[in-house]
Structure formats: structure tokens, C-alpha cells
């Protein structure tokens, strides 16, 4: 069931350190992390606020602002290429086609409020070799993320969509360049429980159907249990434990992992209520 990690990893991070300058002090946000993502695999990074999980995600996708950066070291390779040393145009090429895409927590602040959805999707589709009409490709993408009535949605502005629809539009935009890896940072935190579940199932379906590698950054172990194959637990900028999802939940080795699991079990009863 779990895709066997065969061959070299798609994304490979070794001894990644991100030190930030905050009010004149150095904060070691990420302090020596090793991480691998294989093709078709769904990898979770969990940890509480401030554990460095988002910073790590941004460092590996080169989305960190340079201003605050005191040190960025280690190596990150994607498909064998060194991401951290990549020139801007090579990086751009990687993002435009067959590289990696990102999905963030709050879709409303990543969608342009003054443009209709069709314009925003067209932007993501512009540089692709696929020369079919943009309208057709856009509708295809929207139906892939489980949205119906695609022609109408394309004519709407972001504020006219519900939170769940916006997040699916974001996922559709992220899928437009036909990426090999999707990095999702708290993709369902802003959403309602029922919608959250639908978005998680959408992500899972995409992961399976497209054989797309995914990196899920979240504080919610319920989501990890639902979606991920491999899990890295971060605390204070370091990976304190990494294991496949079953081993991690059944037999956590680290005390911090155990305490996270206890908190999650307090909130997500392990029995599935009402489904007996």
C-alpha cells in the first residue's frame, strides 16, 4: 500500500540549517534537518507552532525572504539538482513546469481579489507546452480537484467562493504546471471539519492518480494519519523522530512524539464514533 521508496529520492535534504535574524538576535529556526521525499510518496512534517516546520518547507522550495536570513546551509536536491544553489531562471523553470508547487494555509491571501479565477488560472497555465485552449485546461483542472460547474466558477472572483472552493482553486493552480511534487503548508487549517475532510480526500486522490509526491506540513496528527506514508516530527528546529506512519503512531520512540500523540488522541478519539 505504501509506495516502496525505490530509487533515489525526488527531494533530498541534508543537514539543512536556517538561521534567521530577528530583532538583532539569531534564531535557529531549522537546525540540521535530513529529509527525503520519494516519487509518489506522501511525507508529513508535524510539529507545534514555532517548531520550524514551515521555515523548512519554505527553505526547501526557496521561498524564504533573503532579508532575515543569517545562515542557510546544507544541501537540498530536487531530481538531482541543487535547489539551494540554483540560479533564478533555473528555479523559475522548475516552478513553471514539472517541478514543485506550493499550497498555503489561507487561500484568500494568496488569490488576487481583483481578478476572476479564469485569469489567475491562466497565469499558471501560460508557460506550458500543452497548447490546448486555456479555458479547456482550466476546466479540466477544476474538475480534477472535485469542483463541479467549472465554467461558472471560472467567471467568479475569490470572494464569491467558499473557503473550501478557494482552497481547491489553489490546489488546481498548484497542479497547473504538472508538478512532480506538491508542498502543502497547513492546507486545511482554515477550513471547516467537513470541508477539511473533502480537501484531504482530494489531496489523497491526486497523490494516488498522478503519482505525485507530496510534502504536508501540519500540526494536526489526524491529517497525518489520514494522508501520509512517512512522518517527520519537528521540535525546536530539529527532527526528533522520523518513521513510517504506522510505526510512529503505534510505537513512538521519542517523548515529544508521544506527547503530541497524547494531545491528538485527546482531541481525536481513536474510536470512530457513529461508524460502528
Amino acid at each position, binding site marked *: 500500500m505504501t509506495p516502496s521508496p525505490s530509487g533515489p529520492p525526488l527531494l533530498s535534504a541534508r543537514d539543512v540549517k536556517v538561521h534567521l535574524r530577528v530583532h538583532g538576535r539569531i534564531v535557529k529556526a531549522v537546525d540540521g534537518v535530513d529529509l527525503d521525499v520519494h516519487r509518489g510518496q506522501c511525507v508529513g512534517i508535524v510539529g507545534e507552532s514555532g517548531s520550524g516546520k514551515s521555515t523548512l518547507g519554505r527553505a526547501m522550495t526557496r521561498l524564504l525572504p533573503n532579508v532575515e536570513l543569517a545562515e542557510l546551509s546544507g544541501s537540498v536536491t530536487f531530481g538531482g539538482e541543487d535547489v539551494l544553489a540554483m540560479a533564478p531562471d533555473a528555479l523559475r523553470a522548475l516552478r513553471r513546469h514539472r517541478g514543485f508547487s506550493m499550497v498555503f494555509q489561507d487561500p484568500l491571501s494568496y488569490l488576487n481579489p481583483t481578478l476572476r479565477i479564469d485569469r489567475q488560472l491562466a497565469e499558471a497555465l501560460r508557460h506550458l507546452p500543452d497548447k490546448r485552449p486555456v479555458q479547456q485546461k482550466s476546466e479540466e483542472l477544476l474538475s480534477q480537484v472535485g469542483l463541479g460547474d467549472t465554467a461558472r466558477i471560472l467567471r467568479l472572483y475569490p470572494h464569491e467562493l467558499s473557503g473550501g472552493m478557494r482552497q481547491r482553486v489553489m490546489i488546481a493552480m498548484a497542479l497547473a504546471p504538472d508538478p512532480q511534487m506538491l508542498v502543502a503548508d497547513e492546507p486545511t487549517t482554515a477550513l471547516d*471539519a467537513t470541508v477539511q475532510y473533502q480537501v484531504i480526500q482530494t489531496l489523497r486522490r491526486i497523490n494516488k492518480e498522478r503519482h505525485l509526491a507530496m510534502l504536508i506540513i501540519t500540526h494536526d496528527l489526524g491529517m497525518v494519519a489520514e494522508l501520509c506514508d512517512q512522518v517527520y516530527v519537528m521540535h525546536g528546529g530539529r527532527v526528533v523522530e522520523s518513521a513510517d506512519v504506522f510505526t510512529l503512531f503505534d510505537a513512538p520512540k521519542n517523548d515529544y512524539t508521544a506527547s503530541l500523540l497524547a494531545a491528538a488522541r485527546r482531541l481525536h478519539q481513536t474510536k470512530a464514533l457513529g461508524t460502528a
Partner: protein
Amino acid sequence: MSNPILTGRSIVKSFGARGWFGGAANAKRAVDTIDLDVNEGETLAIVGESGSGKSTLARMLLGLSKPTSGDVAFCGQSIRSFASSDWTTFRKAVQPIFQDPASSLNPRMRVHTTLANVLLRHKLATRATLDRAISDLLSAVGLDPAQFHDRYPHQLSGGQQQRIAIARAMAVRPRLIIADEPLSSLDMSVQAQVLDLLVSLKTSRNLGLVLISHDLNVVDAISDRVIVMYLGKIVEAGPTRQVLGNPASDYTRSLLAAKLVADPHIARARRQAMDAARTSTPHSRPDQQGAPQ
């Protein structure tokens, strides 16, 4: 059966298009004819997805907005007939906790001032006893008084801010707290801590609690009774164990099916069952039919 602290009778709240003569033809009923009782010392959960009207209902129960029709009564007295002294009594008995603690605390007030204002306003402390009372409140919500006394909200983490909001609500020794999504802006590990705090406060002080939430896990952990809302109406109500253990309505069942489970074995088993159900009953997806090919 104890006497209800708060009762709502046929509460309706509609928003939007109101005609020239007050006709509400296009108005949308956010809350549509709801009856409910909140009893002393009881935890009542109101669940539903966004747009189900649960927060609008909470605002009316708190007296923060007026029902379009119907009535909210506090200990038998309609809040429509409240004099200003009645409002003071009401505020002392019924306190809110909101979702986002950062925006419910005054950013320019230190923790000390925030709590002192409440205590002095309701004459629960004098200048002489104030420091002691504030220390007690902070200790009760699990914060070290010496450390947090002089902080501003921005110097606190989300969980600490929510604890201050809880301390502020507890300051007047209320009989009832109405909490609108008190955990959903917090981290998972912090959620568990704040949940435990609410549970211990309600048992140690016989506090009534109305908990508005879309998270059935939280509802399950804390509430005695639950009301399930959908599009402004109550679709199901009853003891939590019964409603969540043996739901009568399809809507409640769909909410339960969307609940995340912190166990990969159960999660995989459930989705295999779902996949099996999907392949055995192929249903046409309207979005795929509509797509031009």
C-alpha cells in the same frame, strides 16, 4: 431538572434585503426558529458547519445582537425588557470567549489592566485586594502571575492569549460561559491544554458552558448535550453520547464521517471502505459531464 439560565424561544435572525416597508422577502434566515434551554452547570454544544448559524445564535444568546423575532430570556426575564442594571447583572452571569484571542484582547493593555478593569467595574475587588485577585485568576488558568502580570497581548502565544481571555471571563465568577470556537485558532497540543482547562473550570466551579464548535472531537470530549444545526435550523438535539454514538439524521452522520481519527489503521480501513463503496456504485459526476471534451 434544574432551572434554565438562558432560554431561547422561536428565535429568528434574518439578514439582508429588507424592502421599503420592512418586508423581508429576500432576507436570509441565518437562524430559523430555534428553541433551546441552557441549564445550570451543564455543557451544551452547538455544532454545524460554517454558515449554519451557530455563531449568530451565540451572539443573540449573549445579547450582542437582537433576534429579528422570538425571544431570549435570562432566568425567566426577557432580555428585551432589560434595564441597564439588568444588563450589568446579565454580563456578570453570562460571559463570552471568542475564537481569536488576539482580537478580543485590547492590544494596548497589559494583562494586569485587562483583568483589573473587569474586577473593578463589577466591584469584585478593591484597590487593596486587586493584585491578589489578579494573581488568583492567572493561577486558575495555569499562568504564573509573576511572569505574565505585566505582559502585553503581543508578548503572549496564542494559547496564553486564550487563557487570558478565559481568565477575563472567569473574573466575574459567571454562571455561564458562551464560547464561540474557543480552540480552533490554536495549535493541536495547545488545544488539548485549553480543553483540559475548560473541563477543570467547569467541574470545579459548577460552571455552565455553551460551546460553539465545528469540531466533533472537542464536542465529544466536553459536552453533556449537543444541538446540531444546519442552515439555521436544529436538525438533531439530545445527550452527546446518544447523538454522536447513534445519530438519527443523515447530516449528523455526514459530520461524523468527516471526523479525523488519529490512527492511521482506522483511517486507511475507512477510506478503503469508501473506495469500495465508490467503485461498486458508479455515480456520474456532474462536473465531468459539463466539461467540454
